[in-house]
């Protein structure tokens, strides 16, 4: 019988890793076992052999590769010395590493955050070529930008510009419900799109075909999650559901939108404009309606620059010169949507954004903060490690006497710094992994740890690592080079060397930390101020119930009376809009006489309970009478409107309101100014008409309640269902809706606060290290002073004086810088706090106290010590 051979690959592998001394025995035994087993089954024997080889991979069996080069010996020695020192000076090293860990952690979080912000909507494979059309309108009142553009823009652009290979319209019409069998779900995360959309965005279809022909006005594409909640286990494709566009066929199911998409759509209505008829078809084709978001895809190698010069001629085909001036065309790349949309004015047809627009500036601010913190941490690290290195002159001296060159001493420093930074790096990774959930909570993001190792971020990490490494090893290395051999042999050869540099570093650290602390104090004061400012009415204790159907709107009086019956309900009103409105707030022109200069004012329509439900104060005239017929052409103005119009003694006077037509209204009352927008905005003119006004239909019930809101909610829901069983009730608490104005600021505030606290902490750690070193160095001096008769306070003063001066100087530098920047930020608010000297004083005191509390015990124990001991020192 042919002798079976063991698997050669594995045998070679074994020979490769196994020690030469052992290979004879191990290979022999394994082969023998293989031969014996192969008598039964060769396959089994081979498998056993592999397993045996794997089990043989043990440290004891491994070839130990001899370290041949001198350098490796040296590094081996450096490592040994490093870890010995680490054990001896554990406090010093851990303080040093802790500072770095905190610095890196902040930096990494900042990187994660800003990376996530900048990558918003970049997941589309063609994202470089996907643009949104923006209209710029130049009028006397100023320049406005809109993302809702003329309705026929999409087909016209595709037809007229060869550079644009695909285009699509996208529009949104407010609330929507979806019914399948007995399930009925409301969901506003939808958009009505034309079929081109699926060639522009990356939408991964799981099942079905979104471009399939459909019956009726539109077909729908549902997200996985939404399809699940509506259909459960059934296959949705091909089923017909009841939607706001009547009976609609489900064409396809798509994957949920990725988490870094601005829009988290659950439903796409896919429609073909040609299928609509009558008024709506007119609407879709009208160049006077600007309601559609329009997406275009450029041909490869082309971009907006190729098209922009031709847009004027393009628009001339559809508009006259005046209209053109109000509707100039621009393009915005889809990746810029998240951070570069601050200039856009909210308009009707924009779908709901799941992730609100953010702004570029804040990303830069936190990048700067991240950089500041890592600068503080590195300076700290440089200070502490150079102090440590200078104390080791004796070791350096001996190395030199034994023939080490300065270069080798420097290499030693680099190696040691490398290890320290590596340790700090790893620890901060761990810290990030642990803290990520809290961080996500704080910033309202969903980030995962693995994102941290994405290619870009690894690059930044490497850059941070190398910079810190080289800089912090460089400073002590330079000192080493300067010294001659003789001096090396004394223990404190470097005493006092580089003090000025170190103090400069401390100064920079404290300047930055104080600046951050001042920033935080101001930020929180301001946010506190605007959140507690009297709005002119009480926004807590108010619930809004959306009127989302014609049925509810038609029977609003019945619903209102029904809701009012509950004992927990103090007041109910029906209104068109609410103060702190989250949909768009309509504006109209008010005129004193038919041909007078108009002023723009925001419009609210209330019934006769409106003023009292909100708690506005009527300072002149009266509320609506409650008689619908006579109220319809009455108007109540706010103080600002009265002032802007220049009305004197307004009650009883007539004004003209320009909507589609010009109509005459009688002023019956004046209401005290109240805030209806965020406090970034000043109070603007407002006019309040009766609910049955010609401008806008009612859209909300607003309930002022007492006690437990839960019961009121259930009650209102039941009443609503009685009159309109199909539409689910949609409730909001008004004060929560107000909070959304300041959400971004709060996130920013938290972010800056944490970095500020950490930066102070790192600076304090640094100061502690420095004082520790100073005290150690001046042990003998203090002993002598004590013998001569210095008191404990004198010595404490002696040690702390320098640093106190440093802190004061830091304050002097930080204050004007912080003042300048914060003033800019505060200027964005219409209502703001003053920057008082106390804020600065407070920040200074906090930093001072925290710093000196940390070092005082060390200094005090030194000052108290027996001079006999200190004189014997060295």
């Amino acid at each position, binding site marked *: 019988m042919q002798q079976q051979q063991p698997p050669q690959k594995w045998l070679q592998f074994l020979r490769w890793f196994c020690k030469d001394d052992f290979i004879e*025995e191990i*290979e022999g*035994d*394994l082969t*023998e*076992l293989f031969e014996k087993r192969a008598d039964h089954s060769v396959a089994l024997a081979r498998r056993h052999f592999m*397993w*045996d080889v794997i*089990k043989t991979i043990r440290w004891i069996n491994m070839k130990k590769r001899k370290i041949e080069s001198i350098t490796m010996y040296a590094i081996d020695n450096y490592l040994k010395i490093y870890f010995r020192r680490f054990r001896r000076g554990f406090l010093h090293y851990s303080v040093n590493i802790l500072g770095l860990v905190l610095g890196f952690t902040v930096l990494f979080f900042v990187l994660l955050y800003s990376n996530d912000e900048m990558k918003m909507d970049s997941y589309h494979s063609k994202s470089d070529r996907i643009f949104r059309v923006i209209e710029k309108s130049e009028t006397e009142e100023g320049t406005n930008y809109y993302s809702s553009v003329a309705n026929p823009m999409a087909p016209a652009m595709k037809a007229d510009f060869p550079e644009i290979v695909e285009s699509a319209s996208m529009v949104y019409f407010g609330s929507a419900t979806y019914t399948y069998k007995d399930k009925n779900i409301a969901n506003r995360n939808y958009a009505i799109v034309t079929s081109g959309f699926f060639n522009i965005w990356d939408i991964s279809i799981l099942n079905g075909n979104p471009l399939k022909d459909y019956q009726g006005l539109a077909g729908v594409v549902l997200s996985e999650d939404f399809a699940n909640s509506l259909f459960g286990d059934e296959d949705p494709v091909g089923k017909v559901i009841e939607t706001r566009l009547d009976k609609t066929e489900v064409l396809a199911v798509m994957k949920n939108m990725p988490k870094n998409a601005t829009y988290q759509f659950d439903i796409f209505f896919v429609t073909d404009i040609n299928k609509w008829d009558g008024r709506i078809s007119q609407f879709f084709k009208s160049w006077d309606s600007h309601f559609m978001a329009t997406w275009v895809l450029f041909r490869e190698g082309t971009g907006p620059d190729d098209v922009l010069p031709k847009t004027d001629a393009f628009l001339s085909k559809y508009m006259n010169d005046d209209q053109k001036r109000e509707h100039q065309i621009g393009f915005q790349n889809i990746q810029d949507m998240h951070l570069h949309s601050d200039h856009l004015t909210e308009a009707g047809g924009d779908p709901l954004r799941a992730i609100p627009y953010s702004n570029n500036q804040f990303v830069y601010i936190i990048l700067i903060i991240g950089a500041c913190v890592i600068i503080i941490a590195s300076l700290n690290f440089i200070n502490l490690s150079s102090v440590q290195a200078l104390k080791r002159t004796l070791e350096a001296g001996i190395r030199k006497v034994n023939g080490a060159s300065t270069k080798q001493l420097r290499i030693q420093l680099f190696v040691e710094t490398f290890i320290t930074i590596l340790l700090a790096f790893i620890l901060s990774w761990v810290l990030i992994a642990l803290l990520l959930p809290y961080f996500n909570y704080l910033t309202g993001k969903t980030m995962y740890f693995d994102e941290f190792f994405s290619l870009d971020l690894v690059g930044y990490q490497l850059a941070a690592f190398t910079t810190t490494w080289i800089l912090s090893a460089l400073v002590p290395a330079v000192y080493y080079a300067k010294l001659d051999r003789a001096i090396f042999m004394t223990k404190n050869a470097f005493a006092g060397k580089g003090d000025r540099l170190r103090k400069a570093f401390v100064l920079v650290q404290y300047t930055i930390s104080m600046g951050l602390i001042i920033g935080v104090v101001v930020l929180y004061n301001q946010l506190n101020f605007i959140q507690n400012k009297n709005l002119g009415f009480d926004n807590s204790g108010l619930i809004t119930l959306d009127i989302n159907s014609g049925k509810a709107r038609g029977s609003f009086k019945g619903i209102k009376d029904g809701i009012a019956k509950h004992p927990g309900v103090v007041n109910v009103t029906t209104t068109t809009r609410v103060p702190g409105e989250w949909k768009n707030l309509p504006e109209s022109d008010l005129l004193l006489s038919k041909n007078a200069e108009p002023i723009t004012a925001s419009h609210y329509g209330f019934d006769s309970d409106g003023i009292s439900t909100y708690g506005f104060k009527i300072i002149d005239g009266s509320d609506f009478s409650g008689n619908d017929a006579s109220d319809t052409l009455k108007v109540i103005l706010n103080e600002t409107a009265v002032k802007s119009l220049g009305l004197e003694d307004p009650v009883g006077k007539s004004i003209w309101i320009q909507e589609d037509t010009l109509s005459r209204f009688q002023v019956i009352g004046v209401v005290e100014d109240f805030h209806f927008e965020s406090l970034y905005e000043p109070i603007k003119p407002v006019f309040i008409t009766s609910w049955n006004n010609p401008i806008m239909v009612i859209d909300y019930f607003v309930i002022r309640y007492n006690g437990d809101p839960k019961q009121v909610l259930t009650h209102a829901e039941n009443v609503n269902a009685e009159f309109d069983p199909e539409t689910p009730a949609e409730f909001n608490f008004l004060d929560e809706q107000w909070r959304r104005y300041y959400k971004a600021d709060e996130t920013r505030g938290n972010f800056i606060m944490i970095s500020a606290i950490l930066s102070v902490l790192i600076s304090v750690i640094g100061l502690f290290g420095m004082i520790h070193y100073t005290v150690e160095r001046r042990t003998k001096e203090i002993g002598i002073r004590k013998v001569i008769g210095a008191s404990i306070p004198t010595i404490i003063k002696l040690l702390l004086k320098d640093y106190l001066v440093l802190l004061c100087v830091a304050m002097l530098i930080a204050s004007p810088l912080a003042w300048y920047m914060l003033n800019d930020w505060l200027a964005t608010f219409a209502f703001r706090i003053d920057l008082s000297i106390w804020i600065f004083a407070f920040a200074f005191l906090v930093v001072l106290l925290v710093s000196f509390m940390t070092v005082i015990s060390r200094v005090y124990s030194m000052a108290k010590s027996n001079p006999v001991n200190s004189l014997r020192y060295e």
Partner: protein
Amino acid sequence: MKEQSIGEFEELVLLNVAALHDEAYGVSILENLENKLSKKVNISAIHVALKRLETKGFVTSRFGGITGDRGGRRKKFYVITAAGKKVLDDVYSLRTSLYQQIPNISFN
């Protein structure tokens, strides 16, 4: 020098080396052990135990002659040393003396 100690598995291997006197090498120890224990043992565990026993000075080793089997590799034979024997004796007497201290327990 510190008193050398011996682990349970090492003790088993050492007993095998002693029992298989002059015929003890990896595979024979493995087979004997698997027989006695009636469970699978991995060869590399035995190798490691033998290495440890050798550094502790409980066994010595020599190579056998080259044969056509084993891919031309020689067998490495292990023999127990006096120190190894002594350690086995110590363990044995310790166990026996402890065992004899057990009172007569009835498990019925």
